[in-house]
């Protein structure tokens, strides 16, 4: 410690000693000329490279010219036989990431090093070469790499294997040929070689379930030397367990014994990996959980913060689904509340909140209040979420929890944090009737001093719905009208809408609301004025003829039946092409888009609270529409009703990958075949799909649009269009054959042969099913929508679904069959429930709204029965929905 203090004192003097003080790019580039000296001073050269690397590491960049110059100079250094200098040369080449024509310059030097007697050269040369190489060069060095994988020197073998893992992303077809060598390396006695080989082998085979399962079966019985490899094996084992489907509750789960055995491994990382894997098993039983919880509990009292953190974080997750299993750890958890590491303390508290009983709530709340100010926003959000679920668990405690939430709402915090608090209060208000009035007042006070426009407008919207239903709606008016006086235009406009809602719902307030709305007519912002004028007119405040009460409420409270994203794009298109005709809201597509892959990272995170019904993310539908309307043959088909998700028509990893998208029009169907050619040596020309529609009686082929050429790895599309009876949900099965002319490509020149061969490739069948004629469109309030649709065209019937795996499985099958949008989260079936009601909504071809209420019941031997009630505006549509189920 004394030394440290001294250093601080001498800081200025100290800094002088840094070898890089005053370093400057231009000067170092000048110095790099020593690389060209006929008599190389290897020490000097190393120092210059270190300086160059230092500059790059500090974020300095070289221009293209500078980089090329340095690169060429560095290649001269291969003449030196100094090992140290060579290592620096390798590093430098990797950092410069040379272009393809530059790579050629060093290839031969690196290949020489790859075959050198010095292992250090070999290992490093492999890593450098694989980092900078491209596909063609790779085929030249492939032979050496395969040898290196089974080299007796572990460093060389690891270098080749790790390079293989990276290359698999860019040149999978080459790396896959190394399977045999990699498999041999998995048996290596060197711990890390085994780890790298296992990782590569699994990646090569990851699409082949059976192979992965075999790999796991043999390795879990054999010896795995490295803890890292053991961790990998645990992950692969979990994957096999996950994919082997639902376990039978009575019998033992396959591989569980292996996971449990890993809990007694000597390496902590393996113990933890196994414990975590067990807690994440789907449908894990408490008997299976117990040994994992026991080792995690031991970690809780470790002297190492990393271990405590890992354990408490995992237990925290377990507590969400199996709170009882974690209660044994409560005493250890309590002592972690005062942990130096705030992350650990927060996780401990929130775990206790989930596992604790009603009597401990007040004490815990006090402890939390003490440290809330010390922790980062992201952890505050974790605490808020824990409190929200606690409140729902112990509704009687809502008072102290609501107080806590309103207190922290007043303190400093970022948007996400504030939003989490507001969301929690909104959920409490919705779920606990007693909490409504106090909750609304807390929200009112919050918007008096809220810097986030988004939150203010959301709260105002919510107030407009809930406020009029309270015992004394008038007390909220002041808060709302204050917004009109004090806030920015966006908030003012929302406040005007909220005032109107009070006016529509509470007759006694109407005259006073009119006065306030009239004042808004003089607002500086046109949106605010427009809204005030509109509401005064609809509510009859301007003395005009009042619309019926029903219409007013529908207008003010009804939901927009098109996804906002779609509306936005349609409006943008409308503005871009000026037209005399007014915008027609019916022209907006209603399809809810599928979730993009990026959303996958947040599993189970449902929008809650204010972020009411989920809005579809940006889409491919517009892209499809554009694509189709650009093809003259299809431009007369009218408006695109729906495009299906792509259906794979080939196995993964075949020569030609084809998937199909079904585009449904009112009286046409277009199949879009997306084709990818995965063979570099082949060029396909005149590609088309020959469709046999003999099992689809109502369809007749109209047009086909072949693809002129399909080069390697650049996807293209070919289309086939069919005619079908207008507005009818015709179904059928289509068999497909890919027909093309295949031409060989010279790999060195990239040019295709003159002559090609006609060839065919059998694809899988494509089916058009009833669900293709149904659009997923959600409604925000199902009950309202159901009642306003009325029973006129209702059709009810009962169906026996026969024996089923589980109720949840039956529910999801029917949802998929119908292709409708589940509403209000009713697609989720609580485990162990014996009956379930599921609400669905959507639009049927011909633009007919459909609402469906499914009631499921299960009896003893897993027999599931279902009552299906359909409401729509047209009997034939209701019947059509029943037809889907009856024939499905």
């Amino acid at each position, binding site marked *: 410690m004394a030394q440290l203090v001294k250093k601080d004192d001498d800081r200025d003097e100290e800094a002088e000693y840094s070898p890089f003080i005053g370093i400057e790019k231009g000067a170092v580039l000048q110095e790099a000329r020593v690389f060209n000296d006929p008599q190389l001073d290897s020490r000097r050269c190393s120092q210059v490279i270190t300086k160059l690397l230092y500059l790059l590491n500090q974020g300095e960049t070289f221009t293209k010219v500078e980089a090329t110059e340095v690169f060429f100079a560095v290649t001269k250094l291969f003449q030196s036989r100094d090992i*140290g200098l060579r290592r620096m040369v390798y590093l430098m080449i990797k950092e410069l990431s040379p272009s393809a024509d530059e790579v050629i310059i060093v290839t031969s030097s690196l290949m020489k090093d790859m075959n050198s007697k010095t292992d250090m050269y070999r290992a490093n040369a492999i890593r450098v070469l694989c980092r900078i190489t491209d596909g063609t060069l790779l085929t030249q060095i492939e032979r050496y790499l395969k040898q290196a994988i089974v080299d007796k020197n572990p460093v060389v073998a690891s270098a080749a294997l790790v390079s293989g893992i990276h290359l698999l992303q860019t040149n999978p077809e080459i790396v896959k040929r190394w399977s045999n060598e990699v498999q041999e390396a998995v048996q290596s006695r060197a711990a890390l070689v085994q780890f790298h080989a296992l990782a590569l082998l699994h990646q090569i085979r990851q699409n082949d379930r059976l192979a992965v399962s075999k790999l796991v079966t043999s390795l879990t019985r054999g010896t795995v030397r490295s*803890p890292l490899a053991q961790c990998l094996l645990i992950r692969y084992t979990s994957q096999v367990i996950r994919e082997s489907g639902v376990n039978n509750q009575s019998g033992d789960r396959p591989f569980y014994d292996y996971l449990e055995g890993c809990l007694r491994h000597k390496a902590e990382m393996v113990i933890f990996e196994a414990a975590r894997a067990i807690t994440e098993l789907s449908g894990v039983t408490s008997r299976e959980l117990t040994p994992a919880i026991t080792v995690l509990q031991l970690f809780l009292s470790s002297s190492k913060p990393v271990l405590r953190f890992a354990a408490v974080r995992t237990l925290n997750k377990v507590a969400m689904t199996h709170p009882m299993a974690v209660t044994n750890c409560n005493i250890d958890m309590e002592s972690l509340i005062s942990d130096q590491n705030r992350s650990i303390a927060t996780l401990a508290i929130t775990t206790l909140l989930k596992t604790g009983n009603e009597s401990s709530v007040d004490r815990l709340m006090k402890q939390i209040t003490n440290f809330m100010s010390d922790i980062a926003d992201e952890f505050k959000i974790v605490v808020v979420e824990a409190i929200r679920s606690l409140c729902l668990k112990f509704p009687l405690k809502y008072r102290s929890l609501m107080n806590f939430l309103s207190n922290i709402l007043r303190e400093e915090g970022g948007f996400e944090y504030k939003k989490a608090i507001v969301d929690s209060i909104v959920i409490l208000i919705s779920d606990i009737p007693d909490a409504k009035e106090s909750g609304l007042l807390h929200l009112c006070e919050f918007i008096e001093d809220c810097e986030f426009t988004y939150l203010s407008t959301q709260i105002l919207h919510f107030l407009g719905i809930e406020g009029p239903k309270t015992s004394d709606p008038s007390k909220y008016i002041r808060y709302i009208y204050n917004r009109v006086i004090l806030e920015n235009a966006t908030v003012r406009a929302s406040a005007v809408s909220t005032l109107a809602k009070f006016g529509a719902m509470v007759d006694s307030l109407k005259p006073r609301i009119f006065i306030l709305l009239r004042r808004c007519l003089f607002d500086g912002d046109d949106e605010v004025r427009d809204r005030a004028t509109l509401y005064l007119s609809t509510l009859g405040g301007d003395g005009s003829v009042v619309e019926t009460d029903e219409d007013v409420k529908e207008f003010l409270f009804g939901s927009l039946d098109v996804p906002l994203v779609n509306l936005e794009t349609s409006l943008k298109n409308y503005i871009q092409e000026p037209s005399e005709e007014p915008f027609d809201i019916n022209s907006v597509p209603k399809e809810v888009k599928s979730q993009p892959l990026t959303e996958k990272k947040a599993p189970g995170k449902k929008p809650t609270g204010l972020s009411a019904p989920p809005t579809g993310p940006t889409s491919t539908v517009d892209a499809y529409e554009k694509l189709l309307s650009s093809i003259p043959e299809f431009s007369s088909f009218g408006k695109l009703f729906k495009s299906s998700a792509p259906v794979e028509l080939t196995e993964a990893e075949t020569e030609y990958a084809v998937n199909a998208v079904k585009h449904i029009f009112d009286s046409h169907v277009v199949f879009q075949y997306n084709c990818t050619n995965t063979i570099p040596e082949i060029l396909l020309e005149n590609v088309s799909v020959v469709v046999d529609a003999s099992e689809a009686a109502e369809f007749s082929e109209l047009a086909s649009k072949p693809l002129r050429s399909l080069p390697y790895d650049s996807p293209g599309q070919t289309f086939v269009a069919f005619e079908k009876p207008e507005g009818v949900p015709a179904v059928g099965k289509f068999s497909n054959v890919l027909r093309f002319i295949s031409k060989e490509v010279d790999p060195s020149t990239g040019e295709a042969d003159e002559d090609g061969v006609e060839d065919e490739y059998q694809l899988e069948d494509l089916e058009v099913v009833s669900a293709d004629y149904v659009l997923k469109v959600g409604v925000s309030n199902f009950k309202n929508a159901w009642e306003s649709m009325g029973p006129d065209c209702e059709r009810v019937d009962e169906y026996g679904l026969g024996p089923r795996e589980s109720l949840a499985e039956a529910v999801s099958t029917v949802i998929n069959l119908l292709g409708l949008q589940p509403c209000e989260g009713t697609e989720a079936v609580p485990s162990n429930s014996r009956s379930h009601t599921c609400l669905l909504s959507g639009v049927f071809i011909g633009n007919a709204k459909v609402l469906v209420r499914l009631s499921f019941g299960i009896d003893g031997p897993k027999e599931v029965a279902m009552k299906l009630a359909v409401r729509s505006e047209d009997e034939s549509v209701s019947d059509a929905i029943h037809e889907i189920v009856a024939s499905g």
Partner: protein
Amino acid sequence: MAFYREACPTIKNILLLDSEGKRVAVKYYSDDWPTNSSKLAFEKSVFTKTQKTNARTEAEIAMFENNIVIYKFVQDLHFFVTGGDDENELILATVLQGFFDAVTLLLRNNVDQREALENLDLILLCLDEIVDGGMVLETDGNIIAGKVATHSMDDGAPLSEQ
């Protein structure tokens, strides 16, 4: 790609910063921070938020923007290893320990900023031997240091003054 990340332990970056949060040597293996300024911003936020903690005897741990950061401080040097929030914390800790041990050996127990800068070539080679493109290459500090140091014995042309 998503599966590759999940199935194989992956290191997102290794940082060695000085007592003011400035770079001594850093290496990024992930595209999460595409520009130098986003890298600097991450380093700054990690440094500021960990500065006050005591990570001198045992490695400490924290979460930042869906990442787990394991860190350890010695004298005026701050060592960090970052991984995704799904990563096994103990694997990340093992990588940090390997880096730390190797640097201690290479700097002959004089683990401080000045010594590290004077032997920056060794530090950079050390980073190169621990992780390759996010994949863990080696975690044993002795072996890592051994691989880095071999050259100074061979060929009789030591690179740094011994």
